[in-house]
């Protein structure tokens, strides 16, 4: 029994990150004697789930004990998400059993899962943009007066209590969620799940949109929850995070579990090998500088509302220019300004020519491509085929007179499928049925089909597995070598450090400074963002 050895007597240790101790909210049974070879507290056994054409889960197992933080690792499409969806009642397994505290769990639908103490924070956000913060947090569980009216005072009180309990900077409970930046929304998503007081809490890529500070806040909370005796299932593609947080790791590959080991026994290389089923060489490609003299984008005193102030920036051909800084400091607006999505003042020169970037169409014609962060909302039409998506922005290139040339279309689609090694049955496969990593590749293919010279990559590796990330980094490098200019933003600082030639650091809508070549490091990016010099 994994994890049961050596902890037959399982005392609950209370600790917090600062070591001052922790008071549990719920009474816990101290010192439960476990029988040798007894079941783990939570077990999923022989779970099989098929979809038309694919066996997503094939006789898969998952075990965890109370107080454990279990990392669930695997490539996109390995069956992690399906397993979680089976657990949360979104999918019904074809066969298999689930046990909690030795009793079988019967889960019929999502409500029944929540009732039985299973709650999840998803990568795809489930908040309703037009409702307020408070309404979203307690959606479906409003306290209502006898008349059926929602008590808004009560709602506000509970919202503030929730912020306080988990040490979150207070957000006005009555702002609409649509007005909040992505990291804040992700935090609300987490709080929403926490407010349900579940026994098994799943974090599916929950940190992918968080800043470093928020991520460490979340880790503290997760540790506290584990100390309370909850079972945490943590899914992330950031190995360093998993290393720092989890107590054991279960690896999935092709729909089944291939490893279940304590964290101390696992090293990063081994985990990657287990996930891929093969060795993977250096994760980031060797850094090289292809920067040329030609300036592709030149921004002079560009401002936009309160979000972007007085930006001066040059992007040269062959350069991979990173955009760093804490989350929400105007990086998104900078990218939007260069893709005609926000109104700006100041001068923008593209390839030495003064232009007004009034909408995405003019930008595409000028040779700019934006790869957006949210593939479901901005990147892809999920209900259409890979083919239709790939040529969507490049219709100019497939026209023959007034008609679409199927031959030209096929050439472009085939080329992009090959370049990004998109794995799909055929180009007619509906984009929404692909795994996350493959969808992101289609987004890349779609934007690069326009033959751009300037690539704006906004957090393109969010929620993408290591194998795909590696492929993406190689493609980025290849494009730099071809002389394209690349503006690269990522919430993962490690990526910025390892991919970019130079990094501009943003703070409160301004460029706080620039870090070049050898000086690039996490520390220097932070230094510059708080107004110091890189050393």
């Amino acid at each position, binding site marked *: 029994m994994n994890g049961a050895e050596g902890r037959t007597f399982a005392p609950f240790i209370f600790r917090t990150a600062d070591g001052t101790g922790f008071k549990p909210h719920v009474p816990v049974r101290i010192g439960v004697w476990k029988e040798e070879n007894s079941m783990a507290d939570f077990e999923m056994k022989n779970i099989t789930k098929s979809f038309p054409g694919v066996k997503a889960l094939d006789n898969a197992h998952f075990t965890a004990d109370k107080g454990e933080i279990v990392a669930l690792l695997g490539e996109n499409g390995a069956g992690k998400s399906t397993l979680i969806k089976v657990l949360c009642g979104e999918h019904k397994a074809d066969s298999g059993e689930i046990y909690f505290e030795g009793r079988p769990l019967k889960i019929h639908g999502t409500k029944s899962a929540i009732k039985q103490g299973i709650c999840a924070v998803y990568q795809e956000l489930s908040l309703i943009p037009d409702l307020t913060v408070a309404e979203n947090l307690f959606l479906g569980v409003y306290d209502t007066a006898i008349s059926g009216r929602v008590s808004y005072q009560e709602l506000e009180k509970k919202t503030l209590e929730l912020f306080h309990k988990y040490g979150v900077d207070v957000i006005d409970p009555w702002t609409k969620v649509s007005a909040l930046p992505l990291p804040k929304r992700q935090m609300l998503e987490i709080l929403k799940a926490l407010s349900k007081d579940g026994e098994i809490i799943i974090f599916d890529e929950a940190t992918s949109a968080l800043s470093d500070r928020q991520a460490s806040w979340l880790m503290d909370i997760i540790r506290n929850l584990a100390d309370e005796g909850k079972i945490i299932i943590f899914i992330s593609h950031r190995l360093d995070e998993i290393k720092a947080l989890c107590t054991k790791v279960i690896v999935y590959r092709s729909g089944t579990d291939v490893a279940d080991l304590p964290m101390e026994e696992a090293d990063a290389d081994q985990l990657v090998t287990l996930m891929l089923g093969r060795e993977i060489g250096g994760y980031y490609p060797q850094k090289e500088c292809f920067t040329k003299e030609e300036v592709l984008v030149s921004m002079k005193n560009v401002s936009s509302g309160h979000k972007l102030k007085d930006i001066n920036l040059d992007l040269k051909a062959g350069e991979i220019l990173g955009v760093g800084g804490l989350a929400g400091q105007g990086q998104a607006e900078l990218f939007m300004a260069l*893709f005609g999505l926000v109104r700006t003042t100041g001068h923008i020169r593209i390839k030495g020519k003064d232009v007004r970037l009034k*909408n*995405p*169409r003019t*930008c*595409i*014609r000028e040779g700019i491509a*934006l790869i*957006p962060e949210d593939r479901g*909302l*901005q*990147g*892809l*039409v*999920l*209900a*259409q085929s890979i083919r*239709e998506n790939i*040529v*969507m*922005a490049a*219709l100019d290139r497939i*026209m023959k007179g*007034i*008609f*679409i040339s199927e031959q030209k279309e096929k050439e472009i689609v085939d080329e992009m499928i090959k370049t990004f090694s998109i794995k799909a049955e055929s180009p*007619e496969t509906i984009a929404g049925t692909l795994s996350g990593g493959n969808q992101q590749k289609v987004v890349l293919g*779609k934007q690069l089909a*326009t033959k751009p010279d300037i690539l704006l990559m906004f957090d393109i590796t969010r929620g993408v597995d290591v194998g795909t990330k590696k492929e993406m980094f190689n493609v980025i490098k290849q494009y730099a070598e071809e002389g394209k200019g690349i503006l690269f933003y990522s919430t993962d600082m490690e990526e910025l450090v390892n991919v970019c030639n130079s990094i501009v650091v943003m703070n409160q809508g301004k460029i706080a400074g620039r870090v070049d070549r050898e000086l690039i490091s996490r520390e220097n990016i932070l230094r510059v963002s708080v107004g110091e010099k890189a050393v």
Partner: protein
Amino acid sequence: MKMKVQRHQTLIVSYLIAVILFAAISVYKPGFASIDHIRVLCSEAAIIGVVAIGQTFVIITGGIDLSVAWMVGIAAIMVTNTTHGLDENLIWAIPFILILTTLFGVVNGFCIAYLNMPPIVMTLGMNTVLQGGLVAVTQGAPGGAAPAFVKKMGQGSVIGMPYLILIWIVLAAAVTLLLFKMRYGRELFAVGNNATVAAYSGISVRKVTLTAYAVSGLTAGIAGMLLAGKVGQSYLGIGDNFQFQSIAAVAIGGTSLMGGNGNYLGTVAGAFTITIILAILAALNLPFGVQKMAYGIVVLFSVLMSVRKGLRK
């Protein structure tokens, strides 16, 4: 092959429904399947089908056009009234009418795409304005007979094939090309599925939306004139049925009312289905009220199916 069947499943189902309905009633009423009656049915379906061209476009964008009823009415009444029943006046009357109804569509489209009016309110309002305008201009008594050429288009045939059907076939072919082989079709489906992605792909969402409503005005204009020819005259309220029928034809044809997918060939099947249902109800000698009710229920049922399909997506 299997994939093709899967891909066109909704289309095949739409046609199957029409064929089954037709076969069933033919057994019960032998005259139903006579060549002459089939010709009548096709002519009926043709006019619904032409109105439904624009409706298909609009519904693919995720909108709806409720103003087709009085756009059809205006075209029908103007082609009889302004020409005084004389063929030589058609030279200017036909282009004038088509430009006019297209312009009404442009106004719809402009308010919806650029001023963010909800499609239902905008087009319903437009319908009322047109109705009022027409009553005011004609002082409630439009009258007049259709010019001979218009009548010929609406009633005549060449080597046994009614002109109405020929016109419909030509239009259907053009529309199918536009939807699946031309740039506009691609843009239309992208806009209907996800306007944000379409905008990020450099598609002008507003222009595409406006164009769909303009097409709806144009096809309603064509249909109105053909209708006047078929009936031989015009009267107030001549187009009233087409509001509901055009939407129903689109929905039964498998185009999701949520927008984003659809096929005009499906709408063609929808137009036939509606015509056959109406003919069956008439053949059963049911009272007018019951006919209307049954017809309404069928439409609502098909909308229900369409919405459910959208949810599953």
